């Protein structure tokens, strides 16, 4: 074809053997400017030079044909030149468009990968980020190693908890043996013991951090009671999911519900008194400088007392779980543990969905209409 041969000639004369290299160059300027006009100008610039070059060869071949055919030939050749150049331009435009679309595709893939990475990092780093938000990077700017360790361990604990849930679900669905269920229940219970041990260490590191529930997912914090779940709430989650209970079990569970409720109320009242005494100790007159040290020392004592309350609350939670496991059969215990694990898993999922919703503006919300 005439156009392709001329194109090859042009390319060789410009000293660029790879036509796509040209296109990529144009593609780059596309990125900077994002408009066709910027591409058009180098094209226009090149056109005159191309015209000169195309002029050279045809004129040489036409000279001996004679003057009477000159004007027709010139008009023809001009038209042909223009057509050829138009074809050229169109072809190059198509190539540029193709390159642009390819770039878009690769960027899209990169973006998806980055989003996945951020999601992963966010799940790990969310705990660390929330610790930074809660101002204990605050005044001193130092990171509490005990709390950092707790957050790392808690992240791992969550992952293992999900695995336990899976195992329990499989075992119950496939009607595993009593022995297998017993083993699973035991490992699940010791997993919870690990959590309480971790929390005890975290309480020593920073009780205010633990009691704030900053380490928990956002929806979980709705149900926060002294740095964790209410034992009576745990019973409400577990009991409906159990197989038909014997009369004796029903009675025992009723007593357990009552005693855990009474214990919760007592601890809550004690904590209220602690909060009141803490506020009373803070000097109301900011100009009074002298006694500040004394009040701060009293406040430190209250902090220690707070540790006691969190420890007792965790102790209560652990005792409730322990006693529940004694009341129930192995199968029921497995069902109960699965129910509990599922419940918290759903709260965590809901939390991450909610945070996606609030960070993604295109998500349909009630306010967008």
């Amino acid at each position, binding site marked *: 074809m005439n156009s392709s041969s001329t194109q090859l000639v042009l390319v060789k004369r410009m000293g660029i053997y790879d036509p796509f290299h040209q296109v990529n160059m144009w593609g780059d300027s596309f990125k900077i400017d994002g408009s066709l006009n910027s591409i058009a100008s180098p094209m226009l610039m090149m056109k005159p030079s191309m015209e000169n070059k195309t002029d050279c060869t045809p004129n040489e071949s036409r000279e001996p044909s004679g003057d009477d055919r000159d004007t027709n030939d010139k008009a023809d050749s001009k038209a042909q030149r223009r057509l050829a150049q138009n074809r050229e331009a169109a072809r190059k435009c198509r190539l540029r468009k193709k390159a642009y679309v390819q770039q878009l595709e690769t960027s899209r893939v990169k973006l998806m990968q980055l989003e996945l990475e951020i999601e992963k990092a966010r799940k790990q780093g969310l705990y660390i980020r929330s610790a930074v938000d809660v101002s204990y990077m605050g005044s001193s700017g130092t990171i509490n190693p005990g709390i950092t360790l707790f957050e790392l361990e808690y992240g791992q604990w969550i992952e293992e908890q999900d695995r336990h849930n899976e195992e329990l679900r499989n075992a119950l669905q496939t009607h595993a043996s009593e022995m297998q269920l017993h083993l699973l229940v035991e490992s699940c219970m010791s997993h919870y013991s690990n959590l309480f041990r971790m929390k005890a260490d975290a309480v020593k590191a920073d009780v205010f951090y633990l009691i704030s529930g900053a380490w928990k997912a956002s929806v979980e914090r709705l149900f926060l009671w002294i740095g964790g779940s209410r034992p009576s709430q745990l019973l409400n989650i577990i009991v409906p999911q159990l197989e038909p209970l014997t009369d004796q079990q029903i009675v*025992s569970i009723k*007593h*357990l519900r009552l*005693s*855990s409720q*009474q*214990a919760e*109320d*007592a*601890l809550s*009242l*004690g*904590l209220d*008194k*602690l909060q009141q*005494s803490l506020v009373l100790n803070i000097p109301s007159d900011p100009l009074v400088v002298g006694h500040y040290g004394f009040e701060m020392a009293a406040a430190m004592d209250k902090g*220690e*007392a707070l540790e*006691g*309350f969190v*420890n*007792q609350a965790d*102790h*209560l939670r652990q*005792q*409730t779980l*322990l*006693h529940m496991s004694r009341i129930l059969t192995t199968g029921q215990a497995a069902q109960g543990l699965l129910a509990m694990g599922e419940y918290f898993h759903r709260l965590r999922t809901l939390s991450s969905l909610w945070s996606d919703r609030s960070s993604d503006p295109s998500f349909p919300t009630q306010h967008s209409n």
Partner: protein
Amino acid sequence: MFQEKKRMHYQVEAAAAWSYYMRVRSMEEDQMERVARLASQSAVVIFSVSSCCMCHAMKRLFCGMGVNPTVHELDHDPQGKDMETALMRLLGNGSINTNAVVPVVFIGGKLVGSMDRVLAFHIGGTLVPLLKQAGALWL
């Protein structure tokens, strides 16, 4: 003569040291006895400190169950410090909260322990029978 005086001096010193030791021991035993005596005066006895919030929680727990406990505020007692030491000896190192000694609960004159023991018994369902046995609770 001088050696005799010296010997007598040592003997007097030794005797003085021994009697001091015996007095301290008896004081401690007095306090232990006092604690035991106070503990057996009522069905439920709580040794507390008025400013301690965990003690407040303990009191509310028993009141919430319908029990009327006898409370001894150690900070209002002239021998409170010694009693606190005696209680610490009785408890040993078993409790969770190792900073504060109080609250300490006796039911039916027998030591139950700190808040963690009381909670464990209550959740385990053995606290109410214990209270009924001591006559602190009626049906």
